[in-house]
């Protein structure tokens, strides 16, 4: 019997506010010396009171709106009670019955990863987006656990999807898309390797065509996009084998072991799921004014889908080029600055070719982010203009680009200094052409006997004699003229 996976995801996103969720300690936790960003509030000392960070609320509402959610006007924070040493208060301040945002969706494209046109678009419904605080970091050594509370109290946004995901590929597309959106909004680095984005998967199998849900298995410890895909693929296979052998799937929590490529059952914390939520008495209710929500809505930046559609419509780009350019907002901005500088003088497609071609090649080779690229958009445009206007030819343009990449200097200077200007002056080139004809009697004879293709060899000789600087079109034209006239 064929089975179909039913997958829901919980994604935790660390918000990149300057300070923590309920106190003024720096929210910078990754790579900081232990217990340097802590205070009586985030250490859970008696008598302290939390105060909500407004920016964290704004960031969560921005994310909810970008995910097409309804923003709740009346909000209540809740205590989630459990004893664990990463939680100094004995409870986590979270949200329970009244999350900030509910009932949205995220559209994902499921193609083969290299679509030339629109892949198959799917909607994954978002159940809720709520705000809570992160926990401290535990390190286990020699029968002890060490606790660093720098991360305790960092604003943490939880995004919960409905069980609408049907494959490992879709799950991968979903988390990649979420990261793209939080980065566009500027609310988080979305960096999974640094723990700024963490995923948990709920997965069950059911016979294809059934509406029932099978036994749900939770998979944790997914620290990269690759592990999201691999762990789900593995778990689908494991459960399929069990079901096909007529064995039951048990409801457990699994941890993904990336090195071994397997999921392993985690020992469960006894009675851990009795959290006894109740409204947080230390925080008064949060009532968001409709006008405030509207203002946040109005401040949202253009999101990837809208930007892609606009690039296609305004600049005549292909779906593929537009997708590649909007992947990263900073790249899209770079491209658009270049297009704006170019005005009507250069076709935006040509600019796109240089950005996705030469520029991306160098960026990939050297693992350079667009923000560290030394070439200014206006200099890239100047270079394209020099090629288009015939000042330099393609090989010279690539050489110039290389120097620009290394130094960030403007192309005009580099072309001048290296003498890369194309010889487009007929008078200057005529002598070289005459010399090439005189030096190559055999090919010239073959051309005259009707071997048309030999002209390419002669053009090559002109290029060689000018160390690559001759305008090839002009060289061909002059060759033909001189060959005809001395017949």
């Amino acid at each position, binding site marked *: 019997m064929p089975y179909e996976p039913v997958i829901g995801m919980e994604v935790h996103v660390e918000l990149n506010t300057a300070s923590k969720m309920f106190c003024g300690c720096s929210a910078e936790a990754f790579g900081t*010396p232990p217990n340097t960003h802590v205070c009586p509030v985030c250490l859970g000392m008696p008598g302290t009171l939390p105060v909500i960070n407004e920016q964290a609320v704004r960031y969560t509402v921005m994310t909810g709106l970008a995910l097409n959610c309804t923003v709740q006007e009346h909000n209540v924070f809740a205590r989630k009670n459990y004893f664990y040493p990463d939680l100094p208060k004995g409870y986590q301040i979270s949200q329970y019955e009244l999350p900030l945002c509910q009932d949205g969706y995220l559209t994902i494209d499921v193609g083969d990863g290299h679509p030339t046109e629109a892949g198959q678009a799917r909607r994954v419904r978002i159940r809720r987006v709520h705000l809570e605080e992160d926990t401290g970091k535990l390190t286990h050594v020699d029968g002890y656990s060490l606790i660093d509370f720098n991360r305790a109290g960092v604003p943490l946004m939880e995004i919960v999807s409905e069980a609408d995901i049907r494959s490992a590929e879709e799950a991968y597309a979903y988390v990649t898309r979420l990261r793209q959106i939080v980065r566009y909004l500027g609310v988080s680095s979305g960096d999974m390797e640094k723990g700024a984005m963490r995923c948990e998967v709920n997965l069950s199998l059911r016979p294809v065509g059934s509406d029932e849900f099978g036994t749900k298995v939770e998979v944790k410890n997914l620290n990269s996009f690759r592990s999201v895909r691999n762990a789900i693929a593995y778990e689908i296979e494991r459960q399929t084998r069990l079901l096909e052998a007529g064995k039951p799937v048990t409801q457990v929590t699994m941890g993904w072991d990336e090195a071994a490529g397997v999921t392993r059952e985690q020992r469960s914390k006894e009675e851990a799921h009795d959290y006894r939520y109740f409204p947080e008495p230390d925080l008064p209710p*949060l009532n968001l004014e409709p006008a405030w929500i509207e203002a946040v809505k109005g401040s949202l930046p253009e999101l990837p889908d809208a930007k892609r559609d606009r690039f296609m419509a305004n600049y005549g780009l292909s779906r593929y080029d537009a997708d590649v350019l909007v992947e990263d907002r900073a790249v899209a901005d770079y491209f658009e600055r270049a297009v704006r500088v170019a005005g009507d003088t250069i076709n935006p497609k040509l600019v796109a070719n240089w950005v996705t071609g030469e520029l991306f090649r160098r960026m990939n080779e050297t693992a350079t982010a667009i923000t560290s690229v030394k070439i200014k958009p206006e200099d890239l445009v100047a270079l394209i203009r020099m090629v288009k206007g015939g000042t330099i030819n393609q090989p010279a343009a690539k050489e110039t680009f290389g120097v620009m990449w290394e130094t960030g200097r403007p192309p005009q200077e580099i072309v001048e200094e290296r003498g890369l200007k194309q010889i487009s002056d007929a008078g200057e080139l005529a002598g070289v052409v005459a010399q090439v004809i005189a030096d190559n009697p055999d090919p010239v004879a073959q051309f005259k006997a009707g071997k048309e293709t030999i002209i390419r060899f002669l053009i090559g000789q002109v290029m060689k004699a000018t160390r690559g600087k001759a305008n090839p079109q002009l060289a061909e034209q002059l060759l033909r003229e001189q060959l005809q006239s001395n017949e």
Partner: protein
Amino acid sequence: MPKLTLEEVEHIATLARLGLSGDEKETFREQLSAILDYAEVLNRLDTTGVPPTTSALPLNNVMRPDQVTPSLPTEDALANAPDTDADQFRVRAILE
């Protein structure tokens, strides 16, 4: 309102990480049941038309701007810790 069962008291004690003697369990069974009985009295009030509230204070929307303020020096933060190591709190091993 019937009294809490002994199992319920034991469950609550476990969640609160409290080890109770047999006598204490009985004492808390009485006391916790009495609290529930009192809540039962409140339940008799007619609250039709009264919107639910989660706070008795005349406050809402208390927020602060996203600004960093100084943290504690690490030695102060760790001053009350039962045990420390490498500027961190040290506790008995925790299972994942």
